[in-house]
């Protein structure tokens, strides 16, 4: 069993698992951080960007000045942004049988794989994953295609030239494999290869393995996967969240109250009991009130979107591949939402605008739900919220219709005359307005101060570029980064000098290391495999030993372009016995509860299924030709020697030897058993757990005698 690691990005994984003659790709993430090396694509002509000076080498050589521009000490490639693809050389991707997608963020490289590698297999994903993934891809293609750029830079990628460039361009890896964005046609073709699956649906792959998606609790339709055969189980955990909707602490409170009532000392009188009950009830009410309020404003609703994470099904795994943990392990999502709201309110109150670079799905639902509850209390009811994305409308509408994928809490709302997500109400009351782009209706409706949600979080393309240019000069405005995928300092680099305030509130609800530690304790896999980043503290906080995976045995780590041999051997294979063959067996009980029978049969293997069939009866000898053919078909069924079982009690064996005239018997203990030494006969009898050897010097008579003595202690059948 091997794991081929095609991506080094821990939250945008792309691995290939070879397991029992199947080749399974686990996720297909696209690392977009490469785009940070490029100049932003302005939607409206930007004199500032177009007038940036070209970059020249220290010796004044300016041959790269068309390709590279300098801005506030940083150098950027002036070209259409390119993405860093998963490794395509490590394994022949045309041999991949299936691709399993765990969430919509982890499928962005799909068109590159399915359309350009000879891939002929099937992709499995849940419906919301596909639909929202499509929106993300559509938005990406739209952002890039609507600002066509004639120029394409490739000179700087030359290895000899790249060495001369300043950081981070100098250190960028595999630049030669960077590719431009795919087209909508490729997206459609890729998505057509996807087969939709539901949670807990069992999918057979060639009879060899079974794959099953499980709810991972992170996003709408997000899933972990189980890949198992009859005797082996691999779990793939990618992008999971444990923030649950069902307030377990409340349930716990009810349990406590109930438990306390049950455990009330029986010596208490009725009135004392009543007092205790009333007290506990009051306590419970107060507790509910406090928790209720907290949940109302503090906790992230994102957890409430999707069904809770299915942990139980991950138990008894031989290998657990763990990817997609939180990218901000030190930040608590609830605290960040608070920070987001506070900064938003302060900015707007002072007449400034707030820009929130974001993806068109995911965290934005969280933020809108929090704001829905917050704006009235903060006196922001008159502030317009704009959501600008080519897919804004679809995103807002899609989220309302995936009833079966929502948590119980939201599911019940689907059957009421109110939408499950409150952003519908924000739209109805005109507090939230959405537009496909800054062009068109938006420019008529636009009024300030306002809050704008728009993409792309890298600040390299999309409508966000326009707002950065528009609002960057005023210190009244604020840009609040909520997506954790990009370093906000690097994202802001081409906009320097910048007067607007920058707030970094990354919201990542995926598992943190404490949750992982609890998960691993509960699930107890035999081996854990994870990206190397998770096996050591983050470089910036090398003392934080709590920010790494701590498990026993230590997790195996992988990095990009590595092949891991997974540390377990397959010991068993399931074989079916045909009923008529089973009928013919005569088990013999060798010790209480254990019966054995010898089987003579033909092993028939097809489509990774093994069946024992009765051996064909020897055909009656007819013509010589026929007999010859028949004897070719039928395997030789030799008369088998009886099978032996049991153990040899050394002391009794020695006594038996002595009774049979062997004197001078010595016994030595060895690591594996015993050696009985017949000094006179110069003979050794080596008795081990699973074998007994008689070593004597060419005396067959003696050997047979001794063998028969040994056999007396064993059972035959």
């Amino acid at each position, binding site marked *: 069993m091997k794991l081929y690691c095609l991506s080094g990005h821990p939250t945008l994984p792309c691995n290939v698992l070879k397991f029992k003659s199947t080749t399974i790709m686990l996720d297909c993430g696209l690392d977009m951080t490469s785009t940070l090396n490029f100049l932003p694509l302005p939607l409206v002509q930007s004199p500032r960007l177009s007038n940036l000076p070209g970059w020249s080498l220290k010796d004044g050589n300016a041959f790269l000045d068309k390709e590279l521009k300098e801005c506030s000490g940083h150098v950027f490639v002036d070209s259409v942004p390119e993405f860093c693809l998963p490794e395509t050389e490590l394994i022949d991707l045309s041999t991949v049988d299936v691709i399993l997608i765990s969430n919509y963020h982890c499928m962005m490289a799909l068109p590159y794989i399915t359309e350009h590698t000879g891939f002929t297999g099937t992709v499995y994903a849940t419906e919301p994953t596909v639909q929202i993934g499509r929106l993300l891809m559509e938005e990406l293609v739209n952002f890039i295609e609507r600002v066509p750029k004639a120029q394409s830079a490739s000179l700087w990628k030359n290895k000899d030239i790249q060495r001369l460039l300043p950081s981070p361009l100098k250190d960028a890896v595999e630049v030669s494999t960077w590719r431009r964005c795919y087209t909508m046609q490729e997206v459609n073709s890729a998505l057509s290869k996807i087969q939709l699956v539901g949670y807990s649906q069992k999918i057979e792959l060639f009879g060899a393995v079974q794959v099953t998606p499980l709810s991972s609790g992170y996003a709408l339709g997000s899933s972990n996967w189980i890949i198992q055969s009859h005797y082996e189980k691999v779990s793939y955990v990618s992008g999971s969240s444990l923030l649950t909707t069902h307030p377990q602490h409340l349930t716990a409170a009810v349990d406590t109250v109930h438990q306390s009532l049950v455990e009330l000392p029986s*010596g208490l009188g009725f009135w004392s009991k009543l007092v205790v009950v009333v007290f506990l009830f009051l306590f419970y009410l107060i507790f509910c009130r406090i928790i209720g309020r907290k949940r109302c404003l503090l906790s992230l609703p994102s957890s409430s979107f999707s069904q809770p994470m299915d942990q139980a099904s991950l138990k008894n795994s031989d290998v657990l591949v763990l990817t997609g943990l939180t990218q901000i392990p030190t930040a608590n999502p609830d605290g960040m939402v608070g920070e987001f709201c506070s*900064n938003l309110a302060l900015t707007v109150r002072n007449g400034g605008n707030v820009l929130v670079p974001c993806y068109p799905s995911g965290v934005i639902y969280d933020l809108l739900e929090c704001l829905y509850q917050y704006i009235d209390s903060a006196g922001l009811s008159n502030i317009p919220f704009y959501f600008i994305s080519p897919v804004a409308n679809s995103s807002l509408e899609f989220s309302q219709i995936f009833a079966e994928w929502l948590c119980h809490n939201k599911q019940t709302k689907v059957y009421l005359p109110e939408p499950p997500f409150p952003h519908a109400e924000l739209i109805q009351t005109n507090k939230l307005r959405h537009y496909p782009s800054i062009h068109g209706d938006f420019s008529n409706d636009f009024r300030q101060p306002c809050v704008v949600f728009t993409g792309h979080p890298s600040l390299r393309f999309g409508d966000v570029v326009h707002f950065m240019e528009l609002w960057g000069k005023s210190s009244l405005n604020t840009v609040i980064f909520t997506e954790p995928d990009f370093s906000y300092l690097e994202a802001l680099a081409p906009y320097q000098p910048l007067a607007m305030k920058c707030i970094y509130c990354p919201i990542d609800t995926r598992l943190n290391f404490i949750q992982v530690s609890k998960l691993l304790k509960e699930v107890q896999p035999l081996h854990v495999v994870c990206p190397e980043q998770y096996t050591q503290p983050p470089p910036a906080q090398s003392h934080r030993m709590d920010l790494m995976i701590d498990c026993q045995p230590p997790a195996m780590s992988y990095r990009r372009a590595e092949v891991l041999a997974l540390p377990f051997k397959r010991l068993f294979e399931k074989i079916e016995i045909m009923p008529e063959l089973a009928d013919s067996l005569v088990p013999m009980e060798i010790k209480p509860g254990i019966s054995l029978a010898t089987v003579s049969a033909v092993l028939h293997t097809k489509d990774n299924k093994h069946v024992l069939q009765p051996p064909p009866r020897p055909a009656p000898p007819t013509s010589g030709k026929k007999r010859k053919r028949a004897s070719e078909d039928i395997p030789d069924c030799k008369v088998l020697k009886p099978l032996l079982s049991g153990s040899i009690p050394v002391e009794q064996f020695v006594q038996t030897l002595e009774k049979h005239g062997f004197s001078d018997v010595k016994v030595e203990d060895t690591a594996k058993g015993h050696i009985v030494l017949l000094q006179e006969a110069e003979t050794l009898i080596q008795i081990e757990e699973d074998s007994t050897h008689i070593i004597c010097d060419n005396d067959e008579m003696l050997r047979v005698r001794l063998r028969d003595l040994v056999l007396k202690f064993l059972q035959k059948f």
Partner: protein
Amino acid sequence: MAAEGSSLQLLQENPCLVELLCHVLKPQGLSARVLSFSLRLAGVFAAQESCFQYLQQAELLPGLFGEAGPLGQAAWSAPTVRSGWIQGLRSLAQHPSALPFLADCGTLDTIFSLQGDSSLFVASAAGQLLVHILGLSLQGPAEGPPSPQACDWPVCAQKIVGHIEGSLRSMATPQVTQALNVLTTTFGHCHGPWMQVLWERLSPLVACLLQEDPLPAAHSLVDLLLSVARSPVLSSSDCGLWETLAQTLRRLSPAQAGPLALGILKLQDCPQALRAQAFGVLLQPLACVLTAADQAPGPPGLPEGTTGDSVTVDTLLSSKSACAGLLCQTLAHLELLQPLPQRPSPWPQAPLLGAAVTILRFCNGSAAPASDVGGRLCAILAGCVRVQRAALDFLGALAQETGPQELVTQVSAVLLEYLRSPDSSPTVLKKAFQATLRWLLSSPRAPGCCDLDPDTQLFLRELLPVLRKRLCSPCWEVRDSGLEFLTQVTRHWGGQAGFRHALLASEVPELAEQLLRDPESYVRASAVTAVGQLSSQGLHATAASPEQLGGQKESLLAELLHVLSTDSEGFPRRAAMQVFTEWLRDRHADVAEDTERFVARVLQAASRDLDWEVRAQGLELALVFLAQTLGQPSARCPYAVAAPQATPPGPLAQALRALSRVRLFEFAFRALFDCDRPVAQKSCDLLLFLRAQATPSGGLQEAEGSPDVVPVEAALQRWRAGEQGEPLGDLEPEAVLAVLRSLDLEGLRGALAESSDHVEKSPQSLLQDMLATVGVRGENQADCY
């Protein structure tokens, strides 16, 4: 009845009682409750010696409490019967003649076994009973010092002590715990000279316990040793106690030793060496933290010998819960110790500050320890809310004294980090605000002037933006803590120019005013208090713009009145009443403009309020106004001392008319019959004060002739009957005074001072209940007792 007279007589006069007890003796299917009651009743009777003899003669007592009694019956399985049995014995054991009875009929053995009863109440009562019997048996005959020889002791005492010795020798944790608990209670409650003998006899066994590994019942052992050490009989004598304590301190695990160390340090008379040892034990976890953070050979400033030993380090590193538990316990103990006069001296303020700061830095991950232990400690403590809260509390407590400037700067920095961090949980933030307040208020004034020193001003400039952000938090607890902090800091520093300047330059006052409309009632209440305080100090948001002064000022008063009359929740309305009372008391400018109108409006709103606290606060405000109007300068507690000086008749009439104009009389009279007792009590006090103030002169009534009190009394009658009734309109002061004189206010005050259920508890009420029950059921099945 038994408590008030002779039980014997009662029994003799009511033979049915003895019959009842005899009836119980018969083996029959009596209900457990009746049996339990009978046992308790028998105990109450037998508490008097004469009656005890009487019942003995009737051979009732052995039947009830001896082995032949309910012990063997099926009813014994009911905890209520066992509990009744113990309570009966507890009542019975009041006189020496009961002791032979207890010793002879096997009662003690049953009590011993009940110590391990499945019902905690029974088990605890059994232990208490043993203590009581031991005390009774030992205190009686001993006139001189009791003999150390056990054979000279009363049989009961011998048996009990023998049982305790046996339990201690058994080394089994449940038995040892029971024995130690009995001893702890004994040494805590009994103070006879025999205590010393008892301790001398038992201390070797306690010392033996200390040799055991693992130590059984360590917590109970600590309790016992502290109880012995606190006992005046023993602590003054040299009976090896201090040595045992020292040995125990060495023997216990760090978590177990903490409470013992604190207990020792709280003792008044204790050898210095033992105190030093105890303090060392208490400081050890913090010494470990400091060592782990610094990698220095030993933390400077701690008393000598206080180094983090390996056992403490192991405990800290063993698990998250153990580490958090030990640190929280240590911090809480030191916090308790800090303000005590007998705390160790010199007090290691600097290392303690350092330790608190280091722990807080470990918890938020900002410390970068070089040592391996530090790294592991950091991993364990990162994000641990419990430790953060304990450390912030402790840090706040340390603000009573200052420390080296460098450390104070670190304290400010770490507090700011916590206040700023988005990851601070609401409870941690609250603690951080509280600690910050304590440090701010303890900061030194700049030399030569009364304003804040430059460091504090610098700190304030950093703090206020944080406060501003916190007031915008989506979490209501955070907004609430922020407002509370603002109120407190303004109360103390409202007069400091530096603070005023910084606050007015920030956006905080405006935000506070906006929070008056917060959706959360707690926050609205805090906002009302904060805005009221800001306004009192002239720091209200709009006070800065003079051109709008008049209109805006009015608007704040109007806004608070609006809160008072319309807010759906009680907390903001109560807060508004408190602010108004304070404003009136301090003669706030808004109020002083037209005090009568202000009081009239507030009282009108308060009188309609459904929340009794608002009405009670309304009376408080009325009292302040009364005191101001009648010229009583000390309005704090005007009716508490001697009768106040009467006001002369002329101004008095004028003042009374003013009170009438604001409808204070009507408000007070209506409150007199309020269904909530505190309101009625307050009103009663107010009217008593008014009467004392106004009537001694007597001239008013005579001058005006007899007033028409009929409408007032009619209204009072209606209110007393619980009706709403019409408003009274303007009252003639003379009529009010006449009504005041006619009311039995003292009697009313006495009635109100009774507990709220005194009516229900009275025999008359019981009788009524019984009659009612009988009447309803139609047959005589009432459970009268």
